[in-house]
């Protein structure tokens, strides 16, 4: 790779494909069960009120 100074290896194979598929599902609205669970988790009612100081 050119211009990349990272200790991390590129994400390839099934992991890259999984990520690309997930992004595509989010962008097209074709969500699967796992996506819906993730979205529900992230929008769950909060147990605490978060105050940023």
């Amino acid at each position, binding site marked *: *790779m*050119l*211009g*990349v*100074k*990272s200790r*991390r*290896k*590129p*994400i*390839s194979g099934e*992991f*890259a494909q*999984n*990520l*690309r598929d*997930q*992004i595509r*599902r*989010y*962008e*097209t*609205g*074709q*969500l699967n069960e796992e*996506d819906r*669970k*993730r*979205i529900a*988790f*992230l929008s*769950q009612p*909060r*147990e*605490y*009120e*978060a*105050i*940023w*100081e």
Partner: protein
Amino acid sequence: MGKLNFRREPSAKVLKDFQCGIKEMDMFIHLHLDEFLSDHKNQLFVVSNEDNVIVGMFVLSEGYFYDANDTFIDAPVYGKPFAVLDQQTNRTKIAKRYSTVEIEYLAVSQACRDQHIGTEIILAITDLARSQHTPFITVDAYVTIHYSAVLFYEKCGFMHLENQDRGYDTMRMLLNIIPPIEK
């Protein structure tokens, strides 16, 4: 509903009495975190409860993902690439870029375990990332034979970006917070 206060701190000195109970992490916080924070890209946040007791801490930085079609290239912000090498054609090309909030460190006080503080911290970080229009949160989840944070991040919706059996003490993981189109 209880309250949690999130505060940016310039120094790890406020954590002198903080113990998460994971030996390696506590040693790092008390001996080396300040040095890590000397890089201004690494930002320390402390989380305290209504009694002003510190119940958790986390350190954030920035990163980027480049989708080069055959791979995703995962680089810290200081490694901003402008182009990548197409491994099939061996030619340079521009890749699609996504920014990430990188969780460098996250720990909850040993005395406050099982109170869902870690989950609340993740939710607060997602709020912060959304406010910055950042689509991903990434982490190198700590995993050893004695302790693993992987299950916690899985419960929070993070996906694996590599195999667990590669022999390192961390696992690269990512959480997608792109607002989905609902159909």
